[in-house]
C-alpha cells in the first residue's frame, strides 16, 4: 500500500529534476501537481492504515518513517506554495523517496504494546515527527544556502545561482523551520520524559521502560539533536551566527536526525522497540 505514494514521489522527483535542470516552468507545475497527488494518496494510505489498526499507525518504525515522509511532503508543499519557489524540490524529494523505500520493502507489523496506549504517546510521536520534518526542510534549505553562498562568494555565478531563491529568502525560511522544529522537539522530548515517569509507575516490569535512559542511543541522540538546534538558536541570537554558519548547523542537525531516525531506531536502540 506504500508503493503508490513511492511511485508518485518518484515521478514528482523526476519532474523537479527536469524543472531544475532545464528550467521549464511546465515541468515545475507538473512536479508540484505530482507531489500534491502523492501527498493526497499518502494521506489516504495512512487513513486506511489508521482504520485498519484503529490507531494512528506509528507504533512500528516503518510506519513511523512513512508518516514522517508524509509530513515532510506536506511541510515542503506549504513552503513552496507560500514562497512560490520550486528550486528546493529537487533536493527534498530524494529524501522522501529514499525514506519511503523503507516502508515499501520492510512494512513491519503494527502491533501495539499496551504500554503505548496513552494520549501522551500520540503527542510524543507526532510532535517529534513534525519536528523532524521541519528539520528536514531546514537541512535542505541550509544545504542550498551553502551551495549558493559559495558560488557568490567565489564569484562563479553558475548553476545554482540561476536556479535558487535569494540567500535572504533561504536564510529566513531556514530560521523559521529551525525554530518551529525546535519547539516541537522540545515538546516531544518533554512529553516523552513525563510519560516515561508515569508509565514506569503503571508498568514497572516493561523492558522498554527499563531501558529508557540517557544510556539508550535513541534517547541520547535525541538530546544531542536538541542541543545542536538549541545552540543554533542561541548562537544566532547572541553570536550573530546566521547565514552560512546557521546553514551548516541545520544541515548537521538533520544528519543527526536521520541517523537517529533510521539506523539507530532499527538496529541499536532497546528502549524504543515496542513490538
Amino acid at each position: 500500500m506504500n508503493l503508490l505514494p513511492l511511485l508518485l514521489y518518484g515521478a514528482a522527483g523526476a519532474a523537479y529534476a527536469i524543472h531544475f535542470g532545464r528550467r521549464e516552468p511546465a515541468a515545475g507545475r507538473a512536479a508540484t501537481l505530482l507531489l500534491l497527488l502523492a501527498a493526497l494518496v499518502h494521506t489516504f494510505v495512512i487513513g486506511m492504515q489508521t482504520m485498519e489498526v484503529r490507531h494512528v499507525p506509528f507504533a512500528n518504525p516503518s510506519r513511523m518513517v512513512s508518516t514522517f515522509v508524509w509530513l515532510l511532503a506536506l511541510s515542503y508543499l506549504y513552503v513552496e506554495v507560500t514562497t512560490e519557489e520550486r528550486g528546493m524540490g529537487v533536493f527534498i524529494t530524494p529524501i522522501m523517496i529514499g525514506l519511503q523505500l523503507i516502508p515499501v520493502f520492510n512494512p513491519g507489523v503494527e502491533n501495539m504494546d499496551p504500554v503505548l496506549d496513552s494520549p501522551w504517546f500520540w503527542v510524543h510521536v507526532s510532535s517529534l515527527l513534525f519536528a523532524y520534518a521541519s528539520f528536514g526542510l531546514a537541512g535542505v534549505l541550509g544545504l542550498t544556502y551553502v551551495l549558493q553562498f559559495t558560488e557568490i562568494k567565489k564569484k562563479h555565478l553558475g548553476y545554482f545561482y540561476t536556479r535558487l531563491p535569494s540567500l535572504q529568502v533561504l536564510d529566513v525560511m531556514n530560521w523559521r523551520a529551525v525554530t518551529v522544529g525546535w519547539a516541537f522537539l522540545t515538546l516531544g522530548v518533554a512529553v516523552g520524559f513525563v510519560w516515561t515517569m508515569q508509565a514506569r509507575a503503571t508498568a514497572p516490569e516493561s523492558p522498554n521502560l527499563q531501558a529508557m535512559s540517557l544510556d539508550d542511543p535513541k534517547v541520547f541522540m535525541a538530546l544531542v539533536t536538541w542541543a545542536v538546534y538549541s545552540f543554533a538558536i542561541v548562537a544566532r541570537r547572541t553570536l550573530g551566527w546566521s547565514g552560512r554558519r546557521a546553514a551548516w548547523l541545520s544541515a548537521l542537525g538533520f544528519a543527526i536526525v536521520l541517523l537517529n531516525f533510521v539506523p539507530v531506531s532499527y538496529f541499536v536502540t532497546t528502549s524504543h522497540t515496542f513490538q
Partner: protein
Amino acid sequence: MHLFLLGVSHRTAPVDVRERLDFSSRNVGDAVEALATRPSAAESVVLSTCNRSEIYVASGDPQRAKAEIVEFLADYHRLPADAFTPHLFSLDDAAVAQHLFRVAAGLESLIVGEPQILGQVKEAFQAASERRCTGPLLTKLFTWSFNVGKRVRSETSLGEGAVSVSFAAVALARKIFGRLAGRRVLVIGAGDISTLTAQHLRSHGAGQISITSRTPAHAETLAADVGGHAVPWDAMLTVLASADIVITATGSQRPILTRAGIESVTHRRTEPLFIIDLAVPRDVDAAVGDIEQVFLYNIDDLQGVVAENMSRRGAEIARAEAIVAEEVSRFAAWQRSRGAIPTVVALRQRFDAIRRAELQRLDGKLAGLGPEARARVDEVTKLLVEKLLLDPTEQLKALPDEETQIAYTEAVNRLFRLRDEDAPEARSPITPADRRRS
C-alpha cells in the same frame, strides 16, 4: 493583401539618420493616423524606438505603398527623400513576419534579449489600433509577435543575466538580499557607474542612499541626482556599519576600506554586506572579501559576470531563432489559408447557386409537397453541398506552400469555372441536354 515593411534600424542607418526619422519624441498615434490617410497604407503600424523606425503596412499594392511611405516620411519629418532613402530597408510578406517576430523576441536588439522591446512593440500596435489604423492582417501579425516574444522569454534564457556592470551589481544585490526594499546603500566617491548603479538600486526599491566624497560638494550633487543624502567623509565607517550595500568609486591611490576597518564596525553583524568596488586602482583591500558576511565584487569581477551572461545569451540565440522559425512557418501557413479564402468563397457561392437554381427548376414538381417537406428538401440539399465541399475547403486551406496553393486554386477556378462570367448557372438551370452532354 500583402504585408510590407519599410524602415531604418541600427543595422542599416547611422544614428543621425535614425534621429531624424524618430517618431517616439512626438505622438506615434498622430503619425500613424497621418500615414493612414494614404490609400495604400490604410492599415499600418509605426514602431519607433531608439534603434529603429519601422512602418508595417497591410496593402494590396506594396509597390505603391512603398512610394507613399517614402513620401510620408519626407513630409512628416520635413526631409528631402534622398536624405534617408539609401538607409531604408524593405521586406515583404513572410519576411515581414520573420523580422517582427525577431524584433519582439529581442533578437534584433543592439543588446540581444533586452526586455523593453516587447513592450514597445505592444505600445506601437496599441497606438495604431486606438486610431483604428489596423485591420485583421496586421492585428493577427502583431498579436502573433507578442506570443513569439513571450515564448522566447519563457522557453529560453535569452533575456536572462545582466549585460551591463550596473545591472549585474543590482542582480547580485537581489540574489543576496532578495527584495531590496528598505536596504541601505552607501556610495563612496562620485562617478558615472556608481551614480548609475545607485539609481538602479533606487529603482529596485533600495531605501536610504547615503553619499560621501572627499569633496563635500560632489557628494551633495550626486545626492541630489539619485535622491539620497550626503554624509561627511569622516562618518563613512559609522554609516557603513548600518549599510547593506556599499559602492566605492574614488580616485584614491590606496585602499580606503581595509579588513581591520570594516571588522571594527561589522563585529557581530548578522546581515550580509555587499561591497561593490568600481574604482581602479581598487578602493577596497582584497582581504575584506575574506570576512564571512562580506561579498566583495570589484569592476573586473562584475565585467566577468557580464561577459559570462553575454556568452550564455549567445548560446540561447539558436534556440530563440528556432522558435521564431517555427512561428514564422505557422504564420505563413495561416496567411496561405487566408489566401485560399476567396477561392473557397467562390466555390461555395457557385455550388449554392447551382443548388438554388435546381430547386427553382423543380419548383413546379415540388408544389404538391407541404411546407415542412419542402423545408426538408432545402435542408438536405444544403447539407449535401456542405458535405461535398468540406474536404476540398480544408485541403485548400492547409496547402504546404504558396506555389502548390496557386496551382490548386487555379485548378479549382478552372474546373468549376469560378472566374467565368457566364458560368452555366448564370445562363440557365442544368437541362436534360446538359446531362446528356456530360
